[in-house]
């Protein structure tokens, strides 16, 4: 990974991408198209290498070898049957026989829906329980920590309820009763969005920083510096010789 050629290519590509900041240019466009091509090519290779070969082709070839040798299990041959539902997907290309593909897509949708339901139930149910927070500062004796915790819980509950209220379609924002709580809810949502925006800026900065660290440490200091040192030694050796 840290071979000199990789670092040099990485540095040149990084500079090419950064050159877009100064002006749109052919060098940048070349790198952009090359990146797209590499991504698509890599996707195909990875699908074959990581999915099709180990999960489908390898069990079949191993089973075939077992059958030829006359020892071991031929159970892997059953994977040939996967071709039947797999090939049904290609009926999406036919207008007349499109319905055939719905047999297999329906199966996938069913599995995905079931799994999503389980995932979200396990995720959200504890959230509902955790949203019910104690609001009595005198419970278990009054202390400053307890008071601050209850204060925090009040802010949480107010934010939760008013933010939910804001999304009620049936209440008008001009309503005398609901208007102010809804505005507070909107304010809380804006605070949250502000926090998210700040996080976004931090992440973008760290992207830039990582590239700069790469350019300075891995490329300029180690590679370019190393190249100059090597050249210097060669010149010194020539002169000395």
């Amino acid at each position, binding site marked *: 990974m840290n071979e000199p050629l990789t670092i040099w290519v990485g540095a040149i590509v990084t500079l090419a991408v950064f050159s877009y900041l100064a002006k749109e240019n052919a060098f940048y466009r070349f790198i952009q198209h090359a990146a797209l091509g590499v991504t698509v090519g890599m996707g195909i290779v990875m699908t074959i290498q990581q999915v099709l070969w180990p999960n489908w082709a390898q069990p079949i070839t191993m089973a075939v070898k077992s059958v030829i040798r006359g020892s071991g299990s031929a159970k892997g041959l059953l994977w040939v049957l996967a071709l039947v539902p797999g090939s049904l997907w290609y009926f999406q290309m036919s207008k007349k026989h499109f319905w055939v593909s719905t047999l297999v897509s329906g199966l996938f949708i069913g599995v995905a829906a079931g799994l999503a339901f*389980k995932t979200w139930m396990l995720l959200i149910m504890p959230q509902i329980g955790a949203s019910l927070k104690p609001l009595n500062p005198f419970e278990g004796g009054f202390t400053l920590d307890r008071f601050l915790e209850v204060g925090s819980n009040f802010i949480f509950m107010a934010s939760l309820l008013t933010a939910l209220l804001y999304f009620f379609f049936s209440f008008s924002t001009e309503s005398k009763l609901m208007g102010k709580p809804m505005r507070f809810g909107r304010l809380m949502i804006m605070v949250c969005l502000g926090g998210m925006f700040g996080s976004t800026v931090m992440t973008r900065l760290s992207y*830039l920083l990582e590239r700069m660290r790469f350019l300075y440490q891995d490329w300029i200091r180690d590679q370019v510096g190393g190249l100059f040192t090597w050249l210097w030694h060669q010149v010194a050796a020539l002169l000395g010789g």
Partner: protein
Amino acid sequence: MVPFLAKFYNLDRRWLYLAMVVILSVPVIVQIPLPPGATSATTQGLYDLVESCPEDKVILIDSSWDAGSASENRAELECVIRHICRKKIKFVVTSAGVTVFGPEFANQVIEPIAREAGYVYGEDWINLGYKVAPGSIGLLIDAICKDLHSVYPTDYRGTFVSEFPVMDRVKSYKDFAFVYCVTYQPDNAWISFVKGQFDVPVAFGCMTIAAPGYYTFIDSKQLAGMLIGNRGAAEYEELNHKPGLGRILIMATSFGNLMIILAAVVGNLGFYAARALERNARGGTAR
């Protein structure tokens, strides 16, 4: 003063890019020590998990990041591995469903630290490699928790895991002390399945941009801890008493943040100055 400030309103944005590069270069080249801030509860939660890890258990680390999110994930993994190695706890590394380059990038971080700590590959730690998650990562996580050996019959180099002693100690979720997932944006399925279904503590190391979405899970104790970008890593390094990459990067980020705040202030002043000049030109009075 007003005409000078008005120039900032229509400033060529390339000057800002240049200023940002110059300002960020300084802390990258010359390390500037700034005092560390207080440790956040999310970082402390993860640190406490490692500290309280039983000796007979193994930590499952899902390191699913590559060059795209190395800017924060590298430091997040490095500091935790350093702590785990100091505590002499065994660990297993997976890369579930996100990037095929995960194992390679994980090794770059782990191998030097493990070697320094006297860890032996296969005895004290193992990298099981990348596994694709066809359809849903939830299914893969579920399978990892139920039978790790069936999901990973070999390590990332293709050697059968039965040849590695560390894998004798870890078969399913019952052997996990906790799961630490480091990636750009960890999938909620880790919480749903590992914590929700098997009641094994879960901690995340995520990019700062993804962190706001996980705070609710910290509050509900579904997440035991979380490292938030380089700041989280820097805080962890302070707890470790071993400043590292996180500290360097967060210092530089602080300079960048200051630059953005300054640019926002100057840009707004420029906006008002330009508006005042425009009013003045139309016969009004510049305030």
